[in-house]
């Protein structure tokens, strides 16, 4: 729910409560006011009638209409009393109508008279109805106003907020898409902006440091590795005992693994640091076929049937040749490595996509994990699990879409250019 809607919802709730209570209070107040008014009218009427009697020197017009009644009475003189009463209407309907009634007793020339005056309270009903309708109209107007103001606000005042939000969504430090916040004259938004800028600045600095660290670390490791390796090789030729060979072999393999991991990490960070910027026209088909030739015998040794359909490809793209070779080699070595003996590899390339399908064992991990660094299917495998991370990184560099599908021991990697 939008913030404004939420606020408005509470506001509307509060408004309806106020209107409800206000309406009830209004009802009673109005009713009381009208009664008071009517009472005053009745007193005025009484005084007026008594005045007339005085002027006409005691001549009393006996009257017995609904509004005014003067009758002689035997009872004692009593104080004036007001009273609400219902009277049947004259005519056919006989509807009961509320009246205010004033009863007075006066002694005129030795005779006690009862004077009864009545005033209809029918207006009261109309009045209350009118008030109720007005209240409803005002309430509706307020709700409508809220809605319109809401829209206007979200278009005008919230605009910088939404723009910044959009920027934040597109923010990606790995793709060099940074934040450029839009200023507003609203304190809260500006505070948020400055907090965001501070945070993203920190992220960028950290990311930069990390990239540099990875590259420097990998780079610094290369030489000691070379020292270990060369000395190990020297040592190999000094040895005579089979058991020593076994030890050397284990060390050698471990060094080999570290070397490979290190080189791949270095590559990944170099790609991230955009050090493969040199572009040349590259024919992907030729590169792919060359790479395939390099692996041909290996595929053959594992009794894999390799089928290629690359003849619809007829373009050259501006790319970095090393990255392209790396891509081809990684994809193909992957398809050979993670295959079943006697399986097959199907390579399809046209101007839109490169698709490599191969038979292979059932996946243990969820497919989306495949492209993460150090994620490998087979834990006992010596492969560090960086090959697909590298493929992913290269695809990212050229904004290619990389997808993976698996069904019934068939793995398919597709790259859409």
């Amino acid at each position, binding site marked *: 729910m939008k913030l404004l809607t939420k606020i408005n919802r509470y506001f509307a709730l509060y408004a309806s409560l106020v209107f409800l209570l206000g309406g009830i209070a209004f009802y009673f107040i109005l009713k009381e006011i009208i009664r008071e008014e009517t009472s005053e009218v009745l007193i005025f009427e009484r005084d007026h009638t008594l005045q007339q009697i005085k002027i006409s020197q005691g001549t009393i017009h006996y009257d017995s209409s609904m509004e005014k009644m003067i009758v002689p009475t035997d009872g004692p003189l009593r104080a004036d009393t007001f009273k609400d009463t219902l009277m049947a209407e004259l005519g056919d309907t006989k509807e009961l109508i509320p009246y205010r009634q004033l009863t007075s007793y006066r002694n005129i020339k030795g005779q006690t008279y009862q004077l009864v005056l009545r005033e209809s309270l029918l207006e009261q009903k109309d009045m209350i109805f009118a008030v109720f309708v007005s209240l409803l109209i005002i309430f509706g107007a307020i709700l409508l106003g809220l809605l319109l103001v809401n829209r206007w606000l979200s278009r005008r005042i919230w605009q910088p907020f939404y723009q910044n939000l959009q920027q934040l969504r597109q923010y990606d430090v790995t793709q060099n898409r940074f934040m450029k916040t839009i200023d507003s004259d609203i304190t809260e938004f500006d505070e948020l902006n400055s907090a965001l800028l501070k945070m993203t600045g920190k992220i960028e600095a950290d990311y930069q440091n990390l990239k540099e660290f990875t590259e420097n670390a990998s780079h610094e490791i290369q030489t000691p590795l070379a020292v270990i390796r060369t000395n190990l*090789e020297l040592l190999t030729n000094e040895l005579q005992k089979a058991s020593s060979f076994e030890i050397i072999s284990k060390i050698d393999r471990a060094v080999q693994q570290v070397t490979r991991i290190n080189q791949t990490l270095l590559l990944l960070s170099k790609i991230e640091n955009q050090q493969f910027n040199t572009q040349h026209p590259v024919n992907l088909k030729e590169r792919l076929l060359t790479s395939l030739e390099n692996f041909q015998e290996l595929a053959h040794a594992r009794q894999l049937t390799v089928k290629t359909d690359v003849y619809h490809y007829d373009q050259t793209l501006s790319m970095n040749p090393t990255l392209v070779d790396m891509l081809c080699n990684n994809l193909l070595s992957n398809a050979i490595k993670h295959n079943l003996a006697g399986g097959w590899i199907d390579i399809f390339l046209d101007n839109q996509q490169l698709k490599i399908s191969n038979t292979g064992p059932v996946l243990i991990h969820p497919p989306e994990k495949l492209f993460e660094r150090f994620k490998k299917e087979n834990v006992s495998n010596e492969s560090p699990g960086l090959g697909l991370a590298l493929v992913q990184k290269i695809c990212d560099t050229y904004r290619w879409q990389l997808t993976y599908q698996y069904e019934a021991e068939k793995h398919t990697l597709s790259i859409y250019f």
Partner: protein
Amino acid sequence: MKILLIEDDKALSEAILTFLLKEDYICEMAANYRVAEEKIRLYQYDCILVDITLPDGNGLDIIRELKKHHVMAGVIIVSARNSLDDKIMGLDIGADDYLAKPFHLSELNARIKSLVRRQQFQGSNEIIFRDIQVLPDRKEVSVGGHRLELTPKEYQLLLYFLANTRRVISKDALAEHLWGDFMDTADSYDFIYSQVKNLRKKLNQYSTNVYLHAVYGIGYKFVKD
């Protein structure tokens, strides 16, 4: 055969030096740009191994210097940078080969031999080991006068073995030589095993010598019995 090794890391250069001396090369070391420049001016070398990052200069500048003075020595760049730009730049200004650290000494050896061969015989050369004869420019192999039909990988293997005779060559070094960094060694061991077996079989078609010996767990050795 005289080699100049320009490398600032002492441990590494010592190891390489030990190896090269064992391979019967005459080898000298220079740990920085200044010494390297001096040695190049004073002496003649057949092959120069250059590290790009030196404490007091850039290895690429040494290559430029060499080419300026028309020094005929072959140049192999040995770099930890392993960057394509360095490689292209190095080859552009006249280096003959590029080897990324860390490398196998047997690989370095093969590169040096191949380079020297190209340099000294302008390509028209042959490699002879006992009754094996290889013509590298025609990629032809014959044993005892009989032509052998080898697959490209078998040929590469043989050449590598011939450059590193009498030495134990690890399976990893072989795998890296054949596929670069792209094949994990464990996956290619079987293949190397079968390739070596095939190669041995083909050599023994016309030769009674057993050249290829498996060295327990680690690799192979190419010797005459």
